[in-house]
């Protein structure tokens, strides 16, 4: 693979405009994964954990940019570092690691890093919610992803999945979305959020 090079502005624009998203994501991995993984390992993460946290950091960043919530107050590298640190810190807290490790981590939380705590709190909950999508069977998940994420038309989906025509796909898609909504509504933690959102 050859890495396209992006300046900070170009990277944000590429993600925002959904231009072949693989390329900007590849660039983020190329530019930052090693640096940030070493950084997290210094704060007690295992190699696997550092990669998981980095993955979650990239998902968070792409999500924030796509929703137009990224403000270029700091360099992307600074922003990613702050997100990764916070995600790891929360992981440490969750796993109730030793007080020593947390103390070490707290020392590393400098005053100048980008304030991303509000993104992180939201992310924690979203991580849980994303798992609800995996409660759907695979055909349902596929059809919803093809329609709502890949933005394929019903006609195009007929070519990807073994359904007979567009109407069958449309019905199936509606049922799958209703099923997911039912799962979401029945989740006690989520019910509170959606209600709050609607207040």
């Amino acid at each position, binding site marked *: *693979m050859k890495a396209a090079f992006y300046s900070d502005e170009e990277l944000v624009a590429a993600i925002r405009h959904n231009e072949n998203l693989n390329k900007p994501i590849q660039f983020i991995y190329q530019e930052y994964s090693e640096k940030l993984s070493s950084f997290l390992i210094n704060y007690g993460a295992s190699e696997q954990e550092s990669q998981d946290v980095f993955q979650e950091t990239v998902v968070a960043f792409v999500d924030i940019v796509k929703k137009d919530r990224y403000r270029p107050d700091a360099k992307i590298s600074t922003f990613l570092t702050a997100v990764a640190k916070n995600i790891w810190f929360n992981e440490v807290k969750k796993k109730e690691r030793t007080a020593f490790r947390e103390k070490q981590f707290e020392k590393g939380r400098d005053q100048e890093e980008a304030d991303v705590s509000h993104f992180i709190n939201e992310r924690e909950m979203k991580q849980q919610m*994303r798992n609800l999508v995996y409660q759907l069977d695979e055909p349902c998940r596929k059809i919803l992803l093809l329609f709502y994420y890949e933005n394929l038309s019903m006609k195009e989906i007929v070519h990807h999945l073994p359904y007979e025509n567009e109407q069958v796909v449309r019905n199936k898609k509606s049922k799958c979305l209703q099923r997911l909504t039912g799962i979401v509504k029945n989740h006690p933690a989520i019910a509170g959020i959606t209600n709050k959102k609607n207040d």
Partner: protein
Amino acid sequence: MSPSNEQILIDYLDNILDGEDRQQAEKLIGDDAAAAKELADLQFSVELVREVGVLEQVQEVRNSFAAGAKLVPLQKKENGAVVRSFSRNVFRVAAMVVVILGAASIYKYSNTTATSIYNENYASYELTSSRGTNNDGDLETAYRNKNWTGAETAFSQLTDKTAKSWFLAGMASMELKKYDQATTYFKEVIKINSNSSEPVYQDEAEYYQAMSWLAAQHPAEGLAILKKIRSDKNHLFYKKANAINALDLKVLDIKY
């Protein structure tokens, strides 16, 4: 919420309504608090799906990165502009290409298996009401309800087994991961059809038989059927079979 109103909300969310239909949907949302709440819930679900899409795309890049497909970094000037040095000679580039292609080939070769192709391409068969008029009773009901063991039982109790019932039983076996059994059942569909002037579920049985062969670790048999389907434009599964990565099939062909 009535099913028709639910569908109106989904169509509104999908932005496919216009004119009067759109106005009707907006009125429903404006007048009915339950409808507004339902729309918000549906939007919330769509947002989750999109997040899962991002997650899966990032995972895909992560996996290719972990597999050693490192990207070639470009040099940057202080001001951030990209510098492509003229001193990079053709041999360096060629060597790099050879190394990358070599690594990619090794990766592809070692990771492509009958199971990987099956996993990437298998999709459950959805039985639609528009398909045929015969109803195989309990078997069909169990199948529609995705009650695979129930479908198996209903099939075993059938006295008159049709091509359709053999096919559904075969698909239920696929879902239960009884791939050898599925293969046998699909063979029966093809056998019945060979003596019939009106073959039914023939293309379906062929395609899913190929899938069952792959899943049962008989790649040569699966590949032979897929090759036939890929060359037959009139086959119902022509597009689906051609959507399978040709390089994967080639690698499998070489390996087995």
